[in-house]
């Protein structure tokens, strides 16, 4: 069996993402990478916590943040996590079409999230003149949230390019790990967001 063939249900391994050595490596390597990412974001969170009162006379978190927007963003991202679980569910069922659809929904939700985030930043900058250069707090805020936003952008680009690239040829053992790993990445983005909305926004307005 060549790795390139589209699989029929009878040939589908239980875990297509780990059926080949390459897949197994990718799967393992990506989890390790996420372990490193955890430290990366921790460093950013730590910096944020150290500096969240250093407003240097400028705007503080209480004055800036509104919860409505963040709540909507949270819902969007949480839901997109579920939809990507659906996508992987259909991948394992070897149902390529449905997987693509669910991934599409995931991307749409992610784009929505991103749109709100851009709006939020725009708002802070233009309404409050709160920027990266306003204060150490500003620096820490934009860097932490912006880093997360950057991850969202990268995740979206990644998933979209996978979807386009494989649209014609369907699922096989060569690309299954790629889809799986991209979905892990997406979940991780959500994990980080849980801490961002808790630590930055909720604790910020308290």
């Amino acid at each position: 069996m060549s790795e390139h063939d589209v699989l029929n249900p009878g040939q589908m391994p239980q875990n297509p993402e780990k059926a080949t050595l390459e897949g197994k490596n990718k799967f393992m390597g990506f989890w390790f990478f996420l372990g490193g990412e955890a430290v990366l974001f921790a460093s950013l969170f730590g910096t944020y916590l150290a500096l969240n009162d250093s407003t240097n006379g400028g705007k503080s978190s209480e004055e800036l943040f509104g919860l409505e927007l963040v709540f909507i963003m949270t819902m969007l991202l949480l839901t997109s996590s579920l939809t990507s679980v659906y996508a992987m569910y259909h991948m394992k069922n070897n149902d390529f079409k449905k997987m693509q659809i669910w991934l599409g929904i995931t991307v749409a939700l992610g784009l929505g999230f991103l749109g709100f985030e851009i709006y939020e930043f725009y708002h802070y900058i233009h309404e409050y003149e709160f920027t990266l250069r306003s204060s150490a707090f500003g620096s820490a805020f934009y860097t932490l949230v912006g880093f997360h936003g950057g991850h969202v952008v990268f995740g979206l680009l990644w998933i979209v390019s996978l979807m386009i690239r494989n649209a014609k040829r369907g699922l096989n053992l060569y690309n299954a790990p790629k889809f799986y790993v991209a979905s892990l990445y997406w979940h991780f983005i959500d994990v980080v967001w849980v801490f961002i909305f808790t630590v930055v926004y909720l604790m910020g307005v308290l």
Partner: protein
Amino acid sequence: MSTLVATNKKSFGSTIWDYLTTVDHKKIAIMYLIAGGFFFILGGLEALAIRWQLVQPMNDFVSAGFYNELITMHGTTMIFLAAMPLIFAFMNAVVPLQIGARDVAFPFVNSLSFWLFLFGGIMLNVGWFTGGAADAGWTAYAPLSTTSPGQGVDYYVLGLQISGAGTLMGGINFLVTIVNMRAPGMTYMRMPLFTWTAFVASALILFAFPALTVGLFLMMFDRLFGSGFFDPSMGGNSVIWQHLFWIFGHPEVYILALPAFGIFSEIISTFSKKRLFGYTAMVFATVLIGFLGFMVWAHHMFTVGMGPAANSIFAVATMAIAVPTGIKIFNWLFTLWGGNIQINTAMLWALGFIPTFTLGGMTGVMVAAASADFQYHDTYFVVAHFHYVIVGGVVFALFAGTHYWWPKMFGTILDEKLGKVTFWLFFVGFHLTFFIQHFLGLMGMPRRYWTYLEGQNLDLGNLISTIGAFLMGVGTIVLLINIIKTSVKNEKVSGDPWDGRTLEWAIPSPPPFYNFKQLPLVRGLDPLWIEKMEGRKGMTPAEPLTDIHMPNNSFIPFVMSLGLFIAGFGFIYQKQDIAWLSLVFVGMGITLGCMLLRSVKDDLGYHIHKEDLKKEAGE
């Protein structure tokens, strides 16, 4: 490409192209060795300049500003561009062979790691030619670094960021390789100690480097985009940088030291003709050192003013590391005990290491005593401590590994006589240079002093120290001569010149590009030794002869790294002229384009056919 073309003689151009595109761990190892060796000499020359400036009080061989560039680049070069890559050279050359694998888990990423390191290293040094290299110390404490004029520190930030990305990928690569690619029967507790230390060091890389990445990002934003993380006038705090740097920095020293311990474990066991004493304890100690290594970073910050509680906690945690390290020292001694010790050059380095490192470790525990560190900190006592562990531990290991694995990597054997000359010159020079520095420190000589006043009783010690440094230089030159001589003579050796114990010695030197024709069946610790003791010549295969799947060469890693290199200049100079921002887009475009290309273009590799393998074997 499915025939075995490797043996054909090739033109110079195609050899270069081969190395630019290779994904073979053995060739990547050689590139790491050459690049790391080059940077070692560069860092060494910087060290010699440092020592020459300090040969007498109020010397004016170099200016204050240039001296600061020298120490910064010496430290940075030695740690990031010499010691780490040389460790990576041996990890690449040896780890896949020791676990019986055909390559690392991600050959493409492996080559990317190398090119990122190299371009990052070049970037760091570009500063020399554009008005001054980084001059804020290898630790780049803010706000000195964030306010340092010129572009030197920018090159430091971007160079380290690029090469750090390479290192991080390398770490993940080795983790996955060791987890997934072991030959049948190679359980974790049968892995050679070098592989174990590579494994733990890779885990440390994975968890330590992200902190540096973040630190460098923050510094880059502060310097280039006007943020205020470390700027007190914006409410920032310079101590954040110190924490981030040392959260990375302390594990970093064990990233260097652990593989060094691994190298010595292999050598001591091979040349005592004994199995490593207390193998299980050695593994346990390695893991424990790695674990504890994460909880002690603030011992570099005892004088920062963290308060007595934090100081005490970090002091005690630091001292705890002496216990697993001591376990290692005694296990090595008892491996020697009752052995049949053959003292050749590689072993000489190992034997030189034991007392030297013990001294360095002991001064480590001394500086770990917080209230005593109020005296030692930032003096030559600390300089002496860390050169004892880093040179006496890591550099000795690199020299030892060079002699030990040279046959495996190049198929020739380094000259023993010259090797011993190198050792003695370097060893004596080393102790002359650094032993006296303990006293210089306590006698009132702080580090990073470009000069010292007359009449402070520091003259003699510094003179001796400088003389020692030049002896080390001569020793290194002898090694270079040795390498040239050996390469010119080009006398081939067998696959197992040392009567080795581990799998890398079970295949020819240098190994064929697919490493193992058939994966070996591992039946215990020191698998080759076991087979030899049972009268067999080599390993029993674990599989029938089948087609071997190989990855394709690729030029993408080189281009991808080049893209980041280009973008780096854009980041640095956009501060002066926004037009430079275009370079950022060009560079990042190249890199992201390469990633996209890599992602959408299937790279399935190729197969070496069974028949060709047979033909090659002359069947």
